[in-house]
């Protein structure tokens, strides 16, 4: 009697130890060739066990059997057409869920499956425990625990193959089922295709594959079926375009059931640090508190470290430079001394003193970004964002606005929906950028002393509240609510890379210095020129004329013409507010620091109003240009400018009147 050869196909995802098992089983009795007509390696070998000869076929490693790749097609065609006696589905116990997907696709095929549960040692070392007997009961197919690298479980596997082939075990697999509401659909397709399905193919499987939109099976059936019957099938498929979801859903439901039954996960104590931190960082209440705390801490740091440095630079460097220039230009015409001392040093010099404040901002935000916190912040604020028809993804560009509004507007490109993108662009200028923060950091200590951080906090809060309210308004009035949804992966927290942060600080500082050397220099000189021409007396200058024109509006907010000019100049670049004030107030004043003069000129109520307007005012010209570029519409750009102008002036008037009322 000829010896019965048992054909065993080894299936599994890549890197589950399939080759190790193949080598263990076949030893030197291997044959390596190619799959017919394909360039993919085909390994076969023989193995003798307990009087049987096993022909072992190593199928290409595949994640699934969807026929997306050549490997998948080879594996599935082999199983269906060659019908091996047994398929050994090798799975990695440490990555069971991912591996079970292939098993879910193998079970509906007309060949018995044995699950070789490999790497149980790795799973255990990771704190996971897979119960082979429970898994076996849940799957309804034999499960053999193994450590292939150590040769453990191989004999047991061979015994199990033997028992299965000999019919000593009941093979009653629990196959994944399609979602119930699609069951009838599959049955309908099955009854239509039934007479046309070629022999080795299981009918239900073909029906499911058609519903899944499997190109190979669709083509095969279309060729075999009569046109009118195919049209009926096609109509059903067309009507159930989401059938693919229903089929795959069935598999995932099945995997989840298996996992719940057979896998014991690591205990809470072993949960990663990221997970534990995120319990707080993404908590609806604590997460928000943490976010506020972080932003608050950054402001505090700015005031505790940045503000004194700024003050020192202002006195020593700006003051020193002015003294030096005065001395060096002692014989020069008055206008030249005034240009250098009042125009350039007063304007650009004052702005340059912001550098320490900016460096602290850049460093702090760089740190927060690099440590991996940003995604949590986006998640936490999302609940508020959706009220404005925006979602966390818009939060990312908006958050960039803390640095500068220009990238913020540009960042809106990542928002797919045109409406949400436009909304993000319209709201971006309301984010308090570092330049505005610097103005805030400069002015608040002058007027509010120790309450400065609190006032700054309030100003930032105000900007954000106005942003939120504007968002809700735009969302309700201009755009109908649009549904946008995201899934975010929260990256692992990690120790920040100081080089990355250093580079970030360097790049942004360079950009700031470049601005100071160009646009702010030019504006300072123009402001100086306008303040000196035509008579040389600032009170009768062109600038005063412009300022006086704006004064009626300014008066409502307690501002004199100089402050209005400063506001106007901030359109060119936000720092110009200070540069302008530096030019305007240093003109004709000797030795006095800008801060001292300002505190004597403005009441706290007026200062508050000035800050409110400054925070909400039209963004700088670079931002406006970017808004135009990104919206590609003068109408929306005009709307943005007009809206912010109105909001800021109203805000300023309201702040001044209310502050005056409260006293």
């Amino acid at each position, binding site marked *: 009697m000829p010896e019965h050869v048992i054909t065993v196909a080894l299936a599994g995802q890549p890197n589950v130890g399939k080759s190790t098992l193949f080598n263990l089983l076949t030893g030197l009795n291997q044959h390596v060739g190619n799959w017919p007509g394909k360039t993919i390696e085909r390994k076969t070998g023989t193995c003798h066990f307990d009087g049987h000869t096993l022909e072992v076929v190593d199928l290409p490693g595949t994640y699934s059997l969807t026929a*997306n790749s050549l490997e998948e097609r080879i594996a599935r065609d082999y199983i269906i057409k060659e019908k091996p006696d047994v398929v050994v589905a090798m799975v990695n116990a440490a*990555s069971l*869920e*991912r591996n079970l*997907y292939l098993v879910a696709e193998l079970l509906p095929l007309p060949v018995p499956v044995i699950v070789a549960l490999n790497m149980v040692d790795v799973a255990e070392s990771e704190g996971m425990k897979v119960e082979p007997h429970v898994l076996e009961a849940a799957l309804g197919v034999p499960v053999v625990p193994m450590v292939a690298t150590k040769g453990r479980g191989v004999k047991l596997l061979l015994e199990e193959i033997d028992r299965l082939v000999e019919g000593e075990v009941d093979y009653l697999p629990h196959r994944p089922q399609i*979602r119930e509401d699609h069951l009838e659909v599959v049955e309908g397709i099955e009854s239509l295709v039934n007479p046309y399905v070629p022999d080795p193919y299981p009918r239900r499987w073909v029906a499911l594959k058609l519903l899944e939109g499997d190109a190979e099976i669709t083509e095969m059936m279309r060729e075999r079926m009569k046109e009118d019957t195919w049209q009926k099938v096609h109509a059903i498929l067309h009507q159930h375009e*989401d059938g*693919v*979801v*229903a089929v*795959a*859903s069935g598999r*995932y*439901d099945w*995997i*989840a059931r298996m*996992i*719940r039954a057979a896998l014991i996960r690591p205990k809470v104590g072993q949960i990663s640090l990221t*997970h534990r931190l*995120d319990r707080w960082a*993404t908590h609806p209440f604590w997460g928000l508190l943490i976010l506020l705390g972080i932003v608050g801490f950054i402001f505090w740091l700015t005031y505790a470290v940045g503000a004194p440095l700024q003050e020192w630079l202002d006195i020593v460097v700006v003051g020193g430079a002015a003294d030096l220039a005065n001395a060096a230009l002692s014989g020069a015409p008055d206008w030249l001394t005034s240009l250098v001392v009042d125009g350039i040093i007063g304007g650009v010099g004052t702005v340059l003193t912001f550098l320490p404040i900016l460096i602290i901002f850049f460093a702090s*935000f760089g740190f927060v*970004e690099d440590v*991996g916190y*940003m*995604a949590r912040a986006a*998640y936490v604020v*999302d*609940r508020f*964002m*959706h009220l404005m028809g925006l*979602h*966390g*993804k818009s939060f*990312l*560009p908006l*958050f*960039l606005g803390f*640095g*500068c509004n*220009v*990238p913020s507007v*540009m*960042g809106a*490109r*990542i928002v*797919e929906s045109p409406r949400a993108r436009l909304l993000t662009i319209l709201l971006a200028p309301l984010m308090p950028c570092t330049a505005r923060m610097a103005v805030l950091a400069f002015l608040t200590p002058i007027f509010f002393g120790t309450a400065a951080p609190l006032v700054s906090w309030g100003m930032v809060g105000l900007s954000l509240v106005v942003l939120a309210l504007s968002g809700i308004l735009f969302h309700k009035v201009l755009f109908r609510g649009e*549904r*946008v*949804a*995201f*899934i*975010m*992966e*929260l*990256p*692992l927290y990690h120790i920040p890379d100081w080089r990355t942060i250093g580079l*970030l600080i360097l*790049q*942004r500082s360079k950009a700031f210095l470049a601005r100071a050397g160009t646009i702010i220099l030019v504006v300072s000189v123009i402001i100086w020129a306008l303040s000196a021409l035509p008579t040389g007396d600032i009170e009768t200058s062109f600038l005063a004329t412009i300022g006086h024109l704006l004064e009626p509006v300014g008066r409502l907010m307690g501002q004199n013409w100089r402050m209005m000019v400063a506001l106007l100049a901030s359109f060119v670049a936000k720092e110009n507010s200070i540069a302008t004030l530096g030019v305007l107030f240093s003109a004709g004043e000797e030795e006095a620091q800008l801060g001292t003069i300002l505190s004597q000129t403005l009441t706290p109520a007026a200062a508050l109003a000035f800050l409110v307007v400054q925070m909400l005012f039209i963004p700088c010209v670079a931002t406006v240009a970017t808004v135009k570029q990104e919206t590609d519409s003068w109408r929306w750009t005009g709307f943005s400018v007009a809206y912010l102008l109105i909001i800021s002036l109203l805000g300023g008037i309201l702040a001044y009147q209310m502050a005056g009322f409260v006293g």
Partner: protein
Amino acid sequence: MLDQLLRIVTQRGIHTRRELAQRLDVSEELLQQMIEELVHMGYLKPVVGDCHDRCAGCPFATGCAIGGAGRIWTLTGKGVRASDVT
């Protein structure tokens, strides 16, 4: 399971993988697999990869926080339609 995932995702706003995994009572690993499958089927699409292309011309790209370490996926039109049906 996938339809449930689509439905939860469309409900509103941002979802983290962990939150979704908890709601579906599956591991994050399985959820990731489901996301990949939905991407493959055309119901979800990764956002970050998209961004890098679009940001190619942006002068701020080097110091940009968008498209950081975490990946983001969003529903496609097909995904929205499917979640309406299911």
